[in-house]
């Protein structure tokens, strides 16, 4: 690409031909406010908040969608540009509820921030106040809630659902004042092809799409003296929740997280990494079985509930390729209400299991009819990272200065292999560490496949080379599945994570989550793994004991009954 010269705010700069005015300005260190723009998505130019003035023509341009041209002279700070930006935000407020105090996104809302940054006062807020939408909040199902009245029609959710996930569950419906973002026939997410991944809730700049909160149910359990409340936290929470308290992404806060959970009143605090180790053993042996008995491959992971629902809706013919091993969340809860209850002498009927997940689809997963193997609903409540942060804030805990605490016993040991479950490629690396050691008696070099899209590797185990693929983002996954359907897949193992970059980029993680943020969270997890004494799941002493005392062996009859599950073809589009 050739370079051209443009002037922005009297600053002459050389930029690549073909980039946008917004990108050029940011390269020059000039910030322009945006709203519908999102760095990971296609350009929409619908909100008109990023207006700048073309000095030569005096035209106002939406900088996010305007390509640079040679000799262009742009002002981001002219009176006309400032007035246009402010006016457009005021117009967005015209039919917005503007009830920030009662909104879950107060404090992280981009519209609220824009209004504050632009100095929009009461007069500005009311300037164009007109008719407001009065639609019902859609909160059936388990994972996500939509409040169409708060929606500013920026279309980020529509774009992420189509472009990144390839699901297209959401789209604009109706038009003019009646236009809203909705599902087909306003059906609840649980009844359509939605993967419940929650990426829409992460990219939503306002409070229009949020998780269905289970905070009240968890407080109620904690307040109930007859309930024994056990909590598990997913691997990625320890490197992301710090962001909610002003820490840098990727800051490892494991000890503080445990301390906070104990202060909230949970009776026992564990990490899902324990059951991730368990998953690796079950799934690792499942893979070993498949390759030694020449069963059909690829083996596809199933620990991501968003991916599982996506497969059930869109690839019901390929469900046999999925591992039958339950996800770590579900394994953990099942073990808590069986083995653990027995070990500590607590009636499983009084146990309330909570999991803290980077994920909204986990809320859907816990409610699946399949997950009652303990004789009860295995997982009682799922909190996202954001919900847990809200509970900690509600108590006013000084999170950053909490004294580190440790996981409870007898399921408190975790391996580094389990820690990296929280990032794309982690499950594969963790599983192959164990598979290689079991089959060949030797360790596995770091795969280190990076975070983007689809990556592949060739792994040599006991004289045979296996083609391994790691994919995150459902539209990327769909391509690999289409290959399998066409009988053209070369892979023996495929790991799928619904959310881009894996659980570190999950739909329940702190907002906002740019690629840089996610990369730093991933680095945090890799650092934990690196520092661990035990880095292979089959060496976790608590897991070894669990097999000795209770389960017998991987894929044994108790495992089969408690730790494996089945899938259902869903006839939806």
């Amino acid at each position, binding site marked *: 690409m050739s370079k051209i010269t443009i002037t922005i705010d009297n600053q002459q700069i050389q930029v690549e031909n073909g980039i946008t005015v917004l990108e050029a300005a940011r390269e020059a260190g000039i910030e322009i406010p945006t709203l519908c723009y999102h760095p990971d998505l296609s350009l929409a130019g619908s909100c008109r908040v990023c207006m700048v003035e073309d000095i030569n023509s005096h035209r106002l341009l939406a900088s996010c969608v305007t390509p640079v041209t040679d000799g262009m002279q742009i002002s981001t700070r002219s009176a006309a540009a400032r007035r246009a930006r402010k006016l457009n935000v005021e117009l967005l407020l015209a039919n917005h509820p503007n009830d920030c105090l009662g909104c879950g996104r107060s404090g992280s809302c981009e519209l609220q921030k824009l209004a504050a940054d632009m100095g929009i006062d009461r007069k500005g807020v009311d300037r164009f106040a007109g008719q407001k939408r009065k639609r019902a909040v859609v909160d059936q199902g388990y994972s996500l809630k939509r409040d169409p009245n708060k929606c500013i029609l920026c279309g980020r959710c529509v774009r992420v659902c*189509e472009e990144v996930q390839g699901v*297209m569950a959401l789209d604009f419906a109706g038009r003019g004042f009646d236009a809203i973002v909705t599902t*087909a026939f306003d059906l609840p997410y649980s009844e359509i092809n939605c993967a419940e991944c929650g990426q829409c809730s992460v990219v939503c700049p306002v409070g229009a799409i949020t998780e269905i909160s289970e905070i009240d149910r968890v407080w109620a359990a904690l307040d109930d003296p007859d309930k024994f409340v056990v909590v598990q936290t997913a691997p990625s929470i320890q490197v992301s929740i710090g962001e909610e308290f002003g820490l840098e992404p990727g800051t490892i806060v494991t000890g503080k997280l445990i301390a906070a959970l104990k202060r909230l009143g949970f009776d026992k605090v564990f990490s899902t990494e324990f059951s991730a180790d368990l998953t690796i053993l079950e799934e690792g042996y499942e893979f070993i079985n498949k390759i030694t008995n020449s069963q059909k491959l690829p083996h596809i992971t199933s620990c991501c509930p968003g991916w599982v629902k996506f497969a059930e809706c869109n690839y019901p013919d390929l469900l046999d390729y999925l591992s039958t091993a339950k996800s770590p969340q579900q394994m953990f809860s099942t073990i808590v209400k069986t083995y653990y209850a027995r070990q500590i002498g607590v009636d499983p009927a009084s146990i309330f299991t909570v999991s803290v997940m980077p994920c909204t689809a986990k809320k859907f997963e816990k409610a699946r009819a399949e997950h009652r193997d303990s004789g009860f609903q295995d997982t009682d409540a799922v909190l996202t990272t954001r919900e847990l942060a809200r509970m900690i804030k509600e108590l006013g805990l000084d999170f950053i200065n909490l004294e580190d605490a440790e996981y409870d016993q007898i399921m408190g040991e975790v391996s580094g292999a389990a820690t990296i479950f929280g990032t794309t490629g982690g499950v594969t690396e963790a599983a192959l560490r164990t598979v290689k050691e079991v089959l060949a008696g030797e360790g596995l070099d770091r795969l280190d496949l990076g975070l983007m899209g689809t990556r592949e590797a060739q792994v040599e185990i006991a004289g045979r080379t296996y083609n391994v693929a790691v994919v995150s983002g459902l539209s990327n996954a769909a391509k690999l599945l289409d290959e399998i359907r066409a009988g053209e897949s070369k892979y023996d193992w495929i790991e799928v994570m619904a959310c881009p970059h894996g659980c570190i980029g999950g739909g329940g993680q702190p907002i906002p989550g740019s690629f840089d943020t996610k990369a730093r969270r991933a680095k945090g997890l890799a650092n934990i793994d690196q520092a661990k004494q035990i880095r292979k799941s089959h060496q976790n002493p608590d897991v070894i004991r669990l097999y000795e005392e209770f389960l017998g062996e991987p894929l044994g009859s108790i495992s089969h009954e408690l730790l494996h599950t089945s899938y259902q073809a869903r006839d*939806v589009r």
Partner: protein
Amino acid sequence: MNCICGHAQESYAKYFDPLYSILSNYSKDESSLIPVLQDAQDHYGYLPLDVLKEIAGYLGLSLGKVYGVVTFYSQFHLQPRGRNVIRVCTGTACHVRGGAEVLKAIENELGIKSGGTTDDLEFTLETVACIGACGLAPVIMVNDDTHGRLAPETVAMVLNAYRTKGEEVSRATSHVSH
């Protein structure tokens, strides 16, 4: 819930076969969506959920996407429509010459409001901004026929001609044809 009549398979085929023959005229991509929707609506009278699901499946689109397009264009309908569609002009000229009374008379005659459909699916009632026949105000259209210089008292007679068994519209009752 499966039907217990024992003829589910046949009824299914009978219901969807026309749709499949419509679909077979079009390529399996996004660009076929609007013409397919138009043809399907011509056949079924409206666009039922099950039909839209089939269309989405054939074209490789999500139901959400199809729903978005259907709700954007006012030509598409998700609810059953009457056999006859009445369009009452509410433009300026018709308004001045008593269009509102004509509308009210039709609403009373049919027992539905503007936008509604009678329970017997004989009539759907709509209002339009102008049908370009201001000289005949107040004016309505029933299907493709124009009826001008109406009065609240003459409405019933016009409509009766369209009720079932009144298939043939007598031009005599039609004050004007276009």
